[in-house]
């Protein structure tokens, strides 16, 4: 099933990289550069989600959302440049499903969009297999080949986060949020240390690397046939 996302953003550079990035996620993107154009597209087309900038020429994001909500309940993520509670409340009261404050990370946007898109069809697997790694989610057992791994609760949670999104980059922010319920930036290296510890248990000498660091972005759980990658 193709996922269609509408991006309403007047800043061309932002719009362009969002379209490109989201297309590479396998989603079909549409873009609008003004509020009225965005509203027209949102009302006439069928989208799974809309990314809506607040600061738009003509109709601003709040107004677009207000008018859209009269007839449509397409999920909307607002992008706001102003980190003000006021804006957040206006956005959420107006019917936005989520918001992101600029500057935001692209991975964060993808993560939020995934939550919205997955809503209503929450079917989670009970076991995950990546290469020779087997994770039994209901029994909370992890084995690699025949080796049983002894993980702490947090380590298991960390592995689960990565395993549920195989071959996807998961940001440190997202990891901190899911594993530790820390939904704010910290200037600590907790996630790095936790990954290092998990790696020590997961990847013994001679075993293939499964957790890959994507510098500046996050981590990815993937079995790569090419060991150098």
């Amino acid at each position, binding site marked *: 099933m193709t996922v269609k996302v509408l991006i309403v953003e007047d800043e061309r550079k932002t719009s362009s990289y969002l379209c490109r990035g989201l297309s590479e996620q396998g989603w079909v993107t549409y873009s609008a550069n003004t509020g009225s154009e965005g509203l027209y597209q949102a009302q006439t087309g069928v989208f799974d989600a809309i990314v809506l900038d607040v600061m738009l020429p003509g109709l601003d994001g709040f107004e677009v959302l207000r008018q859209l909500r009269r007839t449509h309940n397409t999920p909307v993520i607002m992008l706001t440049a102003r980190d003000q*509670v006021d804006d957040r409340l206006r956005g959420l009261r107006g019917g936005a499903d989520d918001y992101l404050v600029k500057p935001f990370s692209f991975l964060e946007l993808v993560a939020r969009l995934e939550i919205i898109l997955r809503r209503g069809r929450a079917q989670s697997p009970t076991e995950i297999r990546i290469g020779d790694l087997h994770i039994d989610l209901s029994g909370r057992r992890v084995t690699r080949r025949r080796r049983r791994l002894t993980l702490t609760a947090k380590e298991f949670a960390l592995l689960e986060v990565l395993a549920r999104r195989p071959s996807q980059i998961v940001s440190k922010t997202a990891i901190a949020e899911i594993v530790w319920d820390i939904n704010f930036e910290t200037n600590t290296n907790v996630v790095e240390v936790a990954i290092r510890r998990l790696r020590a248990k997961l990847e013994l000498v001679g075993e293939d690397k499964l957790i890959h660091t994507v510098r500046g972005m996050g981590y990815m759980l993937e079995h790569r046939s090419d060991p150098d990658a």
Partner: protein
Amino acid sequence: MKHQRSMSTHLAVMFAIVTATASAAVGGLLYLKESTGLSHHAREVLEARFVIVERLIRFNEGGQEWVYFRQKLAEFTPTDGSLRFIIESEDPRFRVNEHFSTRLNSKGPQIGFGAAELDGTRFLTKASRVAKYGDRPEVRLIIVADQTPQERARRFIAAGILALSLFTIAVVTSLGWWIARRGMRTVDRLSEHARHLGGDDLARRLPTGELPIELSGLVLALNAALDRLQKSHQQLSDFNADVAHELRTPLTNMIGETEVALSRRRNEQDLCDTLQSNLEELERLRGMVNDMLLMARADAGEAGSFTRVSLAAECRRAVDFMEILFDEVGTTAVIRGDGKADVERALFGRALTNLLDNALRHGEPGGQVVVQIDAEDDAAAVTVINPGPAIPLDHLPKIFDRFFCGDPARASNGHSHGLGLAIVAAVARIHGGDVHAENGDGVVKVKMTVRIREQVQERVDASVFPPHALS
């Protein structure tokens, strides 16, 4: 333009109203008294004449005697018509001034004092019956006095009182205005001084010398406000300079690395490395921008969306998160006490992790960090106590300053940009609290207080905001 009320004019008008009221009361009473006196006097005069004439009539037997009496009465009657005698009788021979009597529009009683009017002139009358004596039948004697002089006197008095009152009002009002203006002159002078405030010299203050008590409080308060403004202005410009300085490093790195990368043909891996390095710098910049926004929020005194939480639970969450780092250096952390407070959870959590991070950074490895929660009536405090070397006394008040770094060698280690405790302070301020640091017995205590609000504001965030559980 909006009509602005002048205090001097307002006061002058108030004076005028007060004076007018007082003058009206005094003038009214004075007029009443004078008027009564005049009436009384007129009656006395009339009475004196009446008594004489009545006596002349009483034992008058008529006939020749009546003729004499008439002559006497004629002599007795002033020629200017200010006083007239009327005698009424059944017998026309005994009538006097009958002509006048019939024209007189008398409102007076048959006997005693009364008033009458003729051709617009008002008269005071007195009438009395004089019994029959000898040949003379019973007669009625009426004495009529023209009241024009009294009326004139009354009018004169009224005009006098009115003029005097108006004069008094005018004088009091202008004096009042003048006094008010004089009083306001201090204010004018202050305005003049205030006009020069906030220019180049931020140290300038309003003069406090020779001020009346009513104004000195205000001026002192204003000067105190100016002190605070100057301090925060100073902090702000220092902060701006620091921020610019801090931004310079990542910007230099990015520009340089990108230029180097673009100056030759590079393979994909090299370009990826450059982009990744840039991303790291950009993340640093993003972190700084967000921190600055947070500081700006605290500076603007902007309140957040608070929810009532258990502080121990919040501390537990932060400690759980940091546990792995504590574990790395063999340090343990315990939470003692509990209390409820209204906090913005993300900010509060941020402050807690910063406090724990600070304890970890500056504490002795292998020790025990204590997170002490104390709740009072209107404030709750979280104190992080870590064993470690005492903070030098001259550093103590500065550790919460932005970009303060006691040990320059630790200045940049990638994770912190010197805002850790400054953020704690900002968060405390957003929560109406404060921060405090002190050295204990071989330990360092860093305390953050938050004010406990009376009413919990139930904000929509909590309910409308989608849960962030990604899994």
